């Protein structure tokens, strides 16, 4: 068992984690067809963004990144709110949230 007291978390670790989160998010949007899962994946991408900002901000001792994260959180919430409202509306009319069912515009 490694000695936890000597384990240091560096900027690199944060950035790697956030890159991994980001790509999980992107692949979620690209490969999943359930609209709610796609929204969740987008939230994951935004989490990765926030993590990068916070890690860099802490490393540099700069407040800009913190401010950015606060705004990004608010914007993400607004986006999710609008997105879910549209989803509710579309589910009421169509009874499905599988994006592959939405092909009316491609005909």
């Amino acid at each position, binding site marked *: 068992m490694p000695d936890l007291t000597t384990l240091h978390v560096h900027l690199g670790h944060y950035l790697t984690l956030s890159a991994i989160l980001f790509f999980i998010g992107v692949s979620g949007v690209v490969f999943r067809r359930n609209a709610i899962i796609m929204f969740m994946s987008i939230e994951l991408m935004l989490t990765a963004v926030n993590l990068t900002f916070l890690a860099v*901000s802490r490393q540099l001792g700069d407040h800009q990144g913190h401010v950015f994260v606060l705004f990004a959180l608010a914007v993400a919430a607004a986006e999710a709110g609008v997105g879910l409202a549209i989803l509710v509306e579309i589910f009421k009319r169509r009874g499905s949230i599988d994006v592959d069912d939405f092909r009316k515009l491609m005909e």
Partner: protein
Amino acid sequence: MNFTWSDAAYFWPEAIMALTFIACVLTDLVTRGRRHGVTLSVLIAGTVVSLAMTVIKAPEASHYVFGQMVVIDPFAHFFRYVFLFVTLVTAVFSYSSREIMGKDRENQGEYYSFLAVMCFGMMVMAEANDLLMLALSIELVSITSYIMAGYARFSLRSTEASLKYVLWGAMSSGVMLYGASILYGLTGATGFSAIREGLLAGSGSELALLVGMLFVLAGIGYKISAVPFHFWTPDVYEGAPTPVTALFSAGPKAAGFALLIRFFYTSLVQTDGTGGVTLLEGIQWPWLLAIMSAVTMTWGNLAALRQTNVKRMLAYSSIAHVGYLLMGFVLLTQAGLQAILFYLLIYAIMNLGAFLVVIALNNRLHSEHMDDYAGLGYREPILAGAMTIFLFSLTGLPPTAGFVAKFYLFAALVDSQLWWLALLGVLNSVISLYYYMSIARSMYFTPATETGGLGLSRAHVALVVILAVPTLVLGLYWSPVKALADSSLAFLLGG
């Protein structure tokens, strides 16, 4: 980061649009959503006052306000005119549109509040001078766009367009923010000019810089629907109510270009004092942009060829026009950027005009199919004549404004000896002639199944004519407008 009231003095037109938004919401509340005309009047009054303030408070130099978050300069000032004009025209013709004002739509008042807030967002996009402002203004415009695209919520096509828009839009803004976070990590700054200084100091790896820049560009590219970030455009443009489509094709696109130009220039480009520019890093931006421009216009035009739905065709044609506009951006020369600004203004006029005709016809025909336009040249001569002018202008044929605008773009390319791209642009214009003229052919040379006029409202026809006149006049006498576009780029010479 200090706030002073003297800063706010430069921000009047935007502040008025924000107040107009609140006033529209309140008016709608007071009238209980029944008197939409009142809300519309509030919006129009607010836009006109904002326009008046824009005219009065013309900035002569660059003013950095709100702690350098926002910059008010002649460049932003030029775009204020474009956005206020687009908002005004959209507001007026939304009122006469069946899709917006039809029987089963409640809450029309909200629609006008969204128009106001979108105009505010677009104005800030043209003024953003910080990654935070870039992200916030793009989100403000985007989130409003998602709602407006799904405004006809009883229509399956509209809600579907809205869902596709919000999914891909949210993803692209996620990518853009990640790019912003990488740039922040590389330079330790979020201000555009501070980013340039950080990059000049030579921080970070080339690869990280490329990824960060490409991600931010992807976000902006999505807004202006440049290939390969265009895939949402045809579906959203076709599904959204036509007035909203008209707005999308003129407003946010111009705002995206404004942001693209400012971001690129302030954070990547070094001016060498003599008016020439050099790019900061070793990445081949001109090639990247030239290929993007070539693919965008070719793809847009080829896809437009096989469309029979006029609205969808105009969606593809708007992608092609983004390709033309990017041509002016490729070499980052002053002449190219001046041509872009001029083109954006002309494009807003002619494209709004073409969509206005589609709206007018949709009100009566309940269709945007090309076959239904048969014989309109005889049933509605004024409308069909105006449509022909807009189509000529979109193709870029003399003596219309579209020709002059396109001429300046090609001239800038030829000046910089980028022959292959100029040639491709000309070839693309020839392709576009085919599909634009197929609408005209349908209107004039296909016999109509019915006869008699459509009984369109006089106001609607008058508005179409009001847009057709500048399309023709600016094709013959354009120097004042061109001079305005040229002078608004002065900030580039200052460095």
